[in-house]
Structure formats: structure tokens, C-alpha cells
């Protein structure tokens, strides 16, 4: 159900669009990512594209930048039809994409990276010959860089600045920011907002991809909302309200969606998990977790809030034995005695009835080339050396029903499932094997809000009814506030604040997250 057919006459009738997308379709295995999408981007506007995870926002800008090629549909640049099949084509049309994950070559220097984008330079141009030009351009916009430093030495913010500098260097008319600011600390995000506005004032256009309504409202002139690959409406930011945009984003389900706390709670006295002064390294050999301690009681849900990259991932991985603990202890209660599981292998830890919902579900959660049944049988807690397939099938059938997983059959390969159903297979299996402790990272990513709410309720039920303890780290603060009995805020590797779930203050938490 489309709220408004693209009303471009009423929006900007005085001007021709810089970019027009007409009737674009794009499918991936298991999902139709874009359905007949139309979009107009005008000169000198900041155009937000808003939608849930998996709504197709990224796919759309990746098509504009030539990373994906649409199955059908057309793209017009200044009224002329163009076929864009590579970033080189896109850059020639003045379109530059900045992604959430910086697309730079780590082992190369800044100037080498930027040189790749300068199509005017011949292949045998000396690297050193472009350094002056880079310095000049960067000073113009007030960005300080050392062109000879290798990219891997830069901070995340610096890398994103290099990406923006690249856009300026190639003379971009349109910069697409694909969640490029989402992970930035608050103050630095502000700095880049200024930068974006400066670009706009000089006549540039910006496509801002985000799933955060306030960000879209604050930054943009126009907002287009995508839902499940369809454009459901385009509105002027100045005329839109948060509630209206939300109803566009979630449709008729908006009413079913609630961020209210799931109040039921049954936290017992008995401590299950005792983590003491934990120190863990990240992949680059720096301390990601710096002296975290907490005690988790049976039936308790501990939510770990924080901006991504503050050590939550490493903490979670250390808890399930996937990352080495340098210092500190992890104790878990087993038959009334505490057992030391510091640096125990994942095998030993999982044998204690520990469920794990990992980051990167496609990598650590499921195997898409195998069937649903096999994805369940792969768990050592479910099968012995000789597999009883009838038993596994029974479990699979039960889980598919309980989680309303949409699949052609139990023997379908997981790769034919949609992202949401795929995630449900993973969550269902892990909740099934959880006897003692559930460790989760972004447990509802890729789920639509209704399914996400269902999963949160199931986690909560597991805690309340079976006395399972849960550690849930999530980049989604709403999720944390909704299910936690205890909220811990993680920043730069430490817990900077711990609150009881019922009297946590959102503003305080946000403040601590970006402190």
C-alpha cells in the first residue's frame, strides 16, 4: 500500500531532478530487495532515505553507484538515460558513495587510495605527484591529513573523512552516505554534519541513508521512506512529523510495535555467572575490554548498551570461548559449584547449556548451503555421533511452527529463506539449546519489528519461566531498554554505568554511550 505516488509536481516543480530512478527492480536469492522503485534527487538538497533493516535502502544507493546492476528499470542523470555498471561510471556522472564500512585499502597510504579515484591521472603517474593537490583540497575544507600515512593507522572517523575528501576531489555532484555517520561518536557526527551542509551550500546534493527517524528529520530536506523494497512515500522534512514517518516506515504494523519495557521479571537470588576484571584484546592487539566485572543472577537479563566498537563484541566472544581472555576470570555455576570457564574452549562452554546468538549471523550463525534440518543438527547439543534424523526433524518442525518461519520445506536450503526467516532459524536453534545462559549480540538484526518484538518476548520468557540468565549486547538502545533487568553501558571497553532496568533514564544512557 503506497501512501503517495511520487508527487513530484507538488514537491519541486520548478526544477528538473538531477537523478531520476524509474521502475527499478532488484532480486537477490531469497529476497526481492527493490520493487518498482522511483526516486528523484534534486540539486542542492539533502535527501534522506529511511527504512528498517532490509528495506532496500543500501541496495538502492549501491545501484546508483554501480556496485549492483538492477534487474530492470532505468536511471536518468539530468534527464538523460544512463547505464551505470561500475563505480567508475557513477563517478563520471558525479555520484560518490560513502559506506558504513570504509571502502579504503588498508595497506595503502591515503594518497595512494585517493589516487585510484582520480581518473584524470594516467596509470604511470607518479604517486608523489598528486600529494600537493590532495593537501590543497583538504585545506580548502579544513581537513587535516598526512597523505603518506597508511590507512590502517587511521581512526574510524578519519577514514570516513578521507572518504568524504575523495568525493570532493573527484568533483562529486551527489554524495550518498550509506549509514556512514551511524557509528560515529556524537561530537564527530556533528562535525561531519557541518561538512555536509557546507557541501550542500556549494550546490551539492546528499543522499542520506539511515534507519533513524530523528536523524532524517534533523538533517534532510526531503525524506523518502522504503518498506520491504517499495517506496511508500516521499515527504518534505519540514512538513513531516515523527509519528507520520513512523507510520510510513512500519505501515499498519506501526500500532503493534512497542518499545515499552517488557515488564515481567523473575530474577532470582542465585548467581549464575561471575565475571571478574576481564581484559580482552581486539583483532589488532589493543585492549577492547578493560576490566569488566559483573554478576549475573538466574532469570536476569543483562542488556549491554553502547556504540558499536566499544568492546561489546569482544566481551561477548570471550564469554562463549571464541576469544582469548588476557586477564580476569569467568565463573559459571554448575551443580551448585562455580566452574572456571576462563579461556575454556567454545566446545566446553557450549556443553554447559550456553546458547549463543552471534554477530554476523551468516558467518557464525547458520550455513546457508545446508538445509534447515542440517542447520539444527549441526549443534553438538542436539545430536550424537550417530544422527537420529527423525528426532532432529521433530525438533525442526516444532521450531518452524513456534517461530512461524516461512520456508518451502524443512529440507530447503537456508539460502532460499529471507533474511528475517534465516535469522529466526538461528534464534530458534539457540534458544532451544539454551539451558543455563544465553549470550546474544544484536539478536534481532534483520528482523522486521514485529518479529523482533516476538524474539525479545521469547528471550524474556526463557528467563522468567526457566530461570535462564541472558547477556544481550545490542546496538539498538530501544531493544536494550525493552528487555533488560539490568542495563550496563559500555564505552571504550569498560562499563561506565550500570542501572536497574525499571529506573533507567534514556538520556543518561545516551550521554554515557558517547561520553
Amino acid at each position, binding site marked *: 500500500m503506497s501512501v503517495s505516488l511520487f508527487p513530484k509536481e507538488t514537491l519541486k516543480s520548478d526544477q528538473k531532478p538531477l537523478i531520476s530512478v524509474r521502475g527499478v527492480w532488484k*532480486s*537477490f*536469492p*531469497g529476497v526481492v530487495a527493490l520493487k518498482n522503485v522511483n526516486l528523484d534527487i534534486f540539486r542542492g538538497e539533502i535527501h534522506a532515505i529511511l527504512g528498517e533493516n532490509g528495506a532496500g535502502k543500501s541496495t538502492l544507493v549501491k545501484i546508483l553507484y554501480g556496485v549492483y*546492476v538492477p*534487474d530492470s528499470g532505468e536511471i536518468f542523470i539530468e534527464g538523460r538515460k544512463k*547505464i551505470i*555498471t561500475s563505480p567508475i561510471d557513477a563517478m563520471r556522472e558525479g555520484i560518490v558513495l560513502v559506506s558504513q564500512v570504509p571502502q579504503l585499502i588498508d595497506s595503502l597510504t591515503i594518497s595512494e587510495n585517493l589516487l585510484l579515484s582520480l581518473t584524470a591521472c594516467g596509470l604511470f603517474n607518479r604517486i608523489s605527484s598528486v600529494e600537493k593537490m590532495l593537501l590543497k583540497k583538504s585545506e580548502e575544507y579544513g581537513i587535516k591529513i598526512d597523505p603518506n600515512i597508511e590507512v590502517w593507522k587511521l581512526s574510524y572517523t578519519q577514514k570516513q573523512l578521507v572518504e568524504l575528501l575523495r568525493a570532493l576531489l573527484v568533483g562529486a555532484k551527489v554524495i550518498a552516505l550509506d549509514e556512514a555517520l551511524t557509528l560515529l561518536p556524537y561530537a564527530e557526527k556533528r562535525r561531519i554534519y557541518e561538512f555536509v551542509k557546507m557541501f550542500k551550500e556549494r550546490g551539492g546534493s546528499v543522499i542520506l541513508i539511515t534507519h533513524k527517524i530523528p536523524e532524517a528529520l534533523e538533517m534532510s530536506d526531503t525524506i523518502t521512506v522504503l518498506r520491504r523494497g517499495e517506496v511508500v512515500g516521499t515527504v518534505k522534512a519540514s512538513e513531516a512529523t515523527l509519528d507520520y514517518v513512523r507510520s510510513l516506515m512500519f505501515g499498519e504494523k506501526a500500532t503493534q510495535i512497542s518499545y515499552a519495557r517488557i515488564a515481567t521479571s523473575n530474577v532470582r537470588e542465585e548467581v549464575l555467572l561471575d565475571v571478574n576484571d576481564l581484559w580482552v584484546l581486539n583483532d589488532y592487539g589493543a585492549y577492547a575490554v578493560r576490566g569488566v566485572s559483573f554478576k549475573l543472577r538466574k532469570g536476569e537479563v543483562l542488556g549491554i548498551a553502547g556504540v558499536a566498537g566499544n568492546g561489546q563484541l569482544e566481551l561477548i566472544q570471550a564469554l*562463549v*570461548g*571464541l576469544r582469548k581472555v588476557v586477564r580476569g576470570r569467568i565463573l559459571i555455576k554448575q551443580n551448585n559449584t562455580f566452574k572456571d570457564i576462563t579461556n575454556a*574452549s*567454545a*566446545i*566446553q*562452554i*557450549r*556443553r554447559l547449556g550456553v546458547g*549463543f546468538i*552471534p554477530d*554476523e549471523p551468516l*558467518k*557464525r*550463525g*547458520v*550455513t*546457508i*548451503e*545446508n538445509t534447515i534440518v*542440517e542447520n539444527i*543438527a*549441526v*549443534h*553438538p547439543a542436539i*545430536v*550424537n*555421533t*550417530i*544422527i537420529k*534424523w527423525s528426532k532432529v526433524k521433530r525438533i525442526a518442525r516444532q521450531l518452524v511452527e513456534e517461530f512461524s518461519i516461512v520456508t518451502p520445506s524443512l529440507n530447503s536450503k537456508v539460502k*532460499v529463506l529471507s533474511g528475517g526467516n534465516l535469522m529466526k532459524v538461528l534464534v530458534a536453534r539457540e534458544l532451544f539449546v539454551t539451558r543455563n545462559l544465553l549470550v546474544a549480540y544484536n539478536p534481532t538484526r534483520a528482523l522486521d519489528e514485529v518479529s523482533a518484538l516476538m524474539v525479545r518476548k521469547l528471550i524474556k520468557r526463557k528467563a522468567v519461566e526457566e530461570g535462564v540468565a541472558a547477556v544481550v549486547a545490542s546496538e539498538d538502545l530501544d531493544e536494550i531498554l525493552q528487555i533488560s533487568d539490568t542495563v550496563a553501558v559500555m564505552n571504550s571497553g569498560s562499563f561506565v554505568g550500570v542501572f536497574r532496568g525499571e529506573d533507567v533514564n534514556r538520556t543518561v544512557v545516551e550521554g554515557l554511550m558517547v561520553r
Partner: protein
Amino acid sequence: MRLIVTKRVKPVKVGRVDILNVLIPMLSVLIGVLITTLIFYIAGVSPDIILKELFLGFTSPQMVRYFVLLTVLGIALALAFNASVWNIGAEGQMIWGMIAAGYIGLFIASTYMYVSPSELKLYENMSGAVIIDRSPVKPVVSLLNMDPLLGQLLMVLAGVVAGGLWALIPAVLKAYLDIDEVASTLLLNYVAYYLYNQVVSVNLRGLSVQARQFFRTDILHDALRFQSVPGFTVTYQEVLIALISFTAIFLMYKYTSIGLRLKVLGSNPHLLRAVGVDERKYVLLALFLSGALAGAVGASLFAGVTYKLEKITNIVSPPTMGLGYTAILVTWLSMLDLRIIPIFAWIVASLFQSGMLLESEVKSLGITSLTGATISYTLIGSILVTFTIFRIFSEYTIKVRR
């Protein structure tokens, strides 16, 4: 004009069969054969000779032996490939299988000794004794030390262990040091070839005149040799090895978590680790089993046909006959499906046999410019390259945009 490759949303199915998985390997074989025919045609061999020999290859009784050996090797490679462990080292693993079986057969299950020429008569009628060398100066006699069946079993077991252990080297490197196994297994083939030369011309070198002359071991005691099925070159023991390995591996995949995990290792090793399975052990297992079966084939090459180990003089023709590479074809064309392996083992074995028939036919016609190596390498290469390219169509579509 631009080629755009996109992932296929749905497999192309006729009924329940993914039709491309059937068509692609078949077409690859056909096109590979056509390419080879064309190359030979240019060299002056008329296509009807080639086609005649091809036909003969498919029905030749000698083909059956290659069919059986390639089935075992196909399973060996499928074990590794299904786990995404690209074992290109079956050649080396077979070599070690040969060496180990040779050691058992020549030194444990039997003993060689010089006897004085005058004693020779004594041994002629002695049970368990075989005269290896009737040289008037230093005759050599081989004495059986154990029951021949036990000896044969030990040879195969030794081959299995040696092949498996040799495969464990790249396995450990891959599992614990993340070293690419394609390169390491390939390079280790050459290491194995040269170490084999060292072993057969120094350590295991025989006593007989021929062995002293030609850098080789003595010949295997008659009783320890595998017995061929009447009318064929294939031996009972080889058929038995093939049947046992096929059944065992099939059951392992179907009913055990070990089999499932080996498969999942191929599609997503990180998942194994996350659910609490040490994926590195499965890398070791995949390569060990793979090498073990290749080692068994190596043992049968020794006990079933050569009966001796001889120094490799030209690296083009190792005693493994390049079967370790040929088997890559079998496994890939079968799309790693165990049940399909015998079919392609038959097709590839026939082509292999045809290549040899063609070589002698071509020689008798006086076209001496074509050697066995030319024929078999060209055939393997052209089928493989066609298949490699075609295979992407089972998962991708290619569109042309203007």
C-alpha cells in the same frame, strides 16, 4: 557491451532435479573431447580414428581397473573438496602409499637374500620361496614371512596410514597456520616424487642385478601380489577397497555428525566454531581421510600392477600415472556428489584408457609427434577448463548489456 554476472535467484529445476547440475558436467566432457579432437585433427589425426579409440576406451576391459581406482580417488577428493579443503596432493599421498606398501611387502611380509648359486635348486621347490634373480653369481631369493592375506592387508593399511600422514602436513598448515592448501599440496607432490626417488634408489633398493642397475627395489613376492579378476586387469583387492570405501563414506555422510560437520566445514567453517566444534580438527580429519584413501590406491598400484618401485626418470611420467590429478576431474564433474562419482569415474577412466589406446594407434600410424602426455594432459585440461567456466551457470546468470 558489458557482461553482468548476477546470482541466480532460483535453481533451474526439472521435476526435483537441478537440471544444470546434470547438463553442465556432461556438456563439459563433450566439449572437452571436441576440443581435444580438434587439436589432434590439426596435428593430422583423422577424427574417425579418435572417435573409434574413444569408443573402444569405454568398453575396454583394461578400463575397469582405472574405473575402480578413480572411484576410490574420486571419493578421496570428494571427502576433502566437500569440506572446502582443496587437496591437489593425491599424487604425493599415493606415492607414500606405494612406498609404505613397498616397505611392508618387500621387507616385512617377505625377506630377500642372496644365496649361493649351488643352493638355488633347493629353493626352487621350497614352498614360500621365489627366485627373484637367477644370476649365476649372486642369485636372489624371496621368502614369505607371513600368511599372504595378512601381508596384503598390512600393505594396504600401511598405504592408508602413510597417505593419511603425508596429507596431515598440509592439513596442519591449513588448520593452525592458515596456509593455503592448494599451493602446499601441489608443492608437496614434487617433494614426494623426489623423496620417492631417494627412498627407492637408496633405502629400499633391491639386491638383484636389475635393481642394482636401474635404481629400483626388488620385485614383490608372487604370493603377495593382488589377484586379478579373470578377463580383466583389475584385482579383487582393488574392487574390495572401492566397495568398502564407498559404503563407509556414504554411511558416514548420511548418518553421522562427523559427516555433517565435514559438509558444514565446506560451507561455513565459522559456524562450527561458534556452535562449539573445533573446525581445525575437521580440517585434519578431511585431509587425513582423503590422503588415507589415496594411500590405499597407491598401495594397490604397487601390489596390483608394478610389483616394484622404480626411480622416476622423467617427471612427466610418475608411477602414479597422474591419476591423482585425473581424479580431480572425476570429483569436480560429479559436483562433489558421492553417488555420482562412479558414473564420472567410468567416463573419465574410459577417456584415460582411450588416451592410451590413441597413443599406440597414433604411433602405429607413424604420427610420432603425439605422446601419451600430450593426449591425457590436453584432455584433462580442456574438460576441466570448460567445466570450470560452465559451472558458474548453475549458480549465476550472465546478462549482456549494451
